[in-house]
């Protein structure tokens, strides 16, 4: 079956360092990929997305990289801040055009002051 997973359940970084959160997906036909941040007691918050016709996309302090050859997605956060502490989810559309997203299990990012 389809699955989207993350390599590490918890990532601990020093404030000011860069963070890299990784994700593997299984459906080579997936066309749309998205990262969410979820803080305690809140809903997932959209960070950045990318389509399969791109391999890199940048936002404010964040970059998403897509490697379709090895079915790998990563989120890079520059100059990590305490406010970045949260659970991060990757998701993909599993080649569906219905809007369905398949979520990974989440990586907890802990930022040490």
């Amino acid at each position, binding site marked *: 079956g389809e699955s989207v997973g993350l390599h590490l359940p918890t990532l601990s970084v020093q404030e000011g360092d860069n963070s890299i959160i990784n994700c593997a997906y299984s459906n080579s036909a997936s*066309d*749309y990929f*998205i990262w*969410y941040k*979820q803080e305690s*007691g*809140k*809903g*997932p*918050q*959209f960070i950045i*997305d990318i*389509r399969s016709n791109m391999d890199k996309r940048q936002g404010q302090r964040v970059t998403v990289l897509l490697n379709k050859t090895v079915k790998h997605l990563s989120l890079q956060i520059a100059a990590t801040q305490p406010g970045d502490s949260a*659970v991060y*989810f990757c*998701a993909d*559309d599993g080649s569906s*055009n*219905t*809007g*369905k*997203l398949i*979520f990974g*299990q*989440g990586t907890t990012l802990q930022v040490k002051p």
Partner: protein
Amino acid sequence: DTAVSQTPKYLVTQMGNDKSIKCEQNLGHDTMYWYKQDSKKFLKIMFSYNNKELIINETVPNRFSPKSPDKAHLNLHINSLELGDSAVYFCASSQEGQGVHQPQHFGDGTRLSIL
């Protein structure tokens, strides 16, 4: 001016009861979703509606019945609640016109606890 709002935020009830969760979005989106997040934070889609039409209906017990009175609202009714229904339920919305994916925007969740 909350974009996707759900009520109630917390719901504590006994096994066997029937309850509803309401969701409203003011983003003008045409598609709304319900997700379930379990205790391990795994998020799984349950349903989606596009302009009041059911689009996604995952393998969910028929005790769960979504209702969309208009494209800005998607409510979730649950009959005969069971212990395993305890979870956080999230509503989301997006603009999915013409099959082009757009980001889904989530509410802050309803934490359902079954006693």
